[in-house]
C-alpha cells in the first residue's frame, strides 16, 4: 500500500513538473472572436469588423513566454456596412481577398512578460502577413487564462479558455494595399483590435 502511494506520488510529481503546454483552438463556433479595424482619415473614417478567426496557440500558464502558434483571419470575413465599400475593400485594388484569402500572425517570441492579478501581458513579436506581404511586428497582448471555464461556454465540455486582447497599428502602404490612394480619404494607418478566446478541451 505504501509502495503504491509512493509510485502514485512520484507519477503525480513527474506529471506536474513535465506538464505539457495546452493547445488552444481559436475557431469559435459562437462567433465571439473578432477583429475590429479603424481607418481615421481627415475626410472619411472607415470602421469594420472581421469574425473569420481561426488558429491554434500552444500556451503554458506556468511559462507564458513560451507561447507559440498563429492566429488567422479570413480576408473575406472583413465587413463594412456599405456594400459598395465592402466590394471595393475586398476587390483586387485593395485587399484582393481572392488572391490573399488569409491575414496571419505567427508568433516568433514574447518579451516583457508580466503577471498581474490573473492577467498576463507582454510584447509579442511575430510575422504578420497582410495582402501577401509578411513583415515582423511587435504588438502588446493581454492574456487571461480561465481554467475550467470552457464548460460555461460549451455545455458539458470540460476544459480551459485563453482570452487574448490586443490593439496595434499597421500601415497599409507597408503591405502594398493601394499605396497610391489619397491618404486624406483612406488613412494609411489601420488600427486593429483583436478580441479572441481559445478553447482547450479535456
Amino acid at each position, binding site marked *: 500500500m505504501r509502495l503504491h502511494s509512493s509510485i502514485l506520488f512520484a507519477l503525480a510529481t513527474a506529471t506536474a513538473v513535465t506538464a505539457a503546454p495546452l493547445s488552444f483552438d481559436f475557431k469559435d463556433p*459562437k*462567433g*465571439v*472572436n*473578432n477583429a*475590429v479595424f479603424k481607418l481615421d482619415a481627415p475626410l472619411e473614417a472607415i470602421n469594420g*469588423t472581421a*469574425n473569420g478567426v481561426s488558429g491554434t496557440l500552444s500556451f503554458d500558464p506556468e511559462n507564458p513566454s513560451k507561447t507559440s502558434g498563429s492566429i488567422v483571419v479570413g480576408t473575406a470575413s472583413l*465587413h463594412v*456596412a*456599405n*456594400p*459598395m*465599400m465592402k466590394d471595393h475593400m475586398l476587390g483586387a485594388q485593395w485587399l484582393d481577398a481572392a488572391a490573399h484569402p488569409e491575414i496571419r500572425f505567427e508568433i516568433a517570441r514574447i518579451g516583457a512578460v508580466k503577471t498581474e492579478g490573473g492577467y498576463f501581458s507582454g510584447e509579442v513579436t511575430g510575422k504578420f502577413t497582410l495582402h501577401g506581404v509578411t513583415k515582423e511586428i511587435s504588438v502588446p497582448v493581454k492574456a*487571461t487564462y*480561465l481554467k475550467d*471555464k470552457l464548460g*460555461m*461556454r460549451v455545455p458539458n465540455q470540460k476544459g480551459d*479558455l485563453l*482570452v487574448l*486582447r490586443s490593439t496595434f497599428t499597421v500601415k497599409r502602404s507597408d503591405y502594398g494595399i493601394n499605396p497610391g490612394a489619397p491618404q486624406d480619404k483612406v488613412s494609411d494607418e489601420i488600427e486593429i483590435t483583436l*478580441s*479572441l*478566446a481559445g478553447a482547450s478541451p479535456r
Partner: protein
Amino acid sequence: MKTLLRRLSVILALSALATWLALGRNTGWTKTSVTTMKTDPVTTLEYPVTEKRFVPGIDLLGVSLAGAAALAGLSFLGRRSRTNPS
C-alpha cells in the same frame, strides 16, 4: 405638365428627406447592415453582432435631392406662353 413636374419634384424631395430623417439621419454612406457590440459574459470580450438593415446615407439623400432639383429645372424649360402684343 410644368405643374406636374414641380409637384413630383416637391414630393420626391420631401419623401427623401422624411425617409432619411426617419431611418436614422445617417451622415455617412448608405448602409445595408448595422453592427452593434455586445459583451460575452464568460470571457468579457466585446464582439460585433451584425443585422441586415437599410440605413440611407447622405449619398442617397443627395441623389434624391438632385433628382428633385432636376425635375424642378425641367419644369422651367419649354415654350413660354406669350401674350399677343396687339
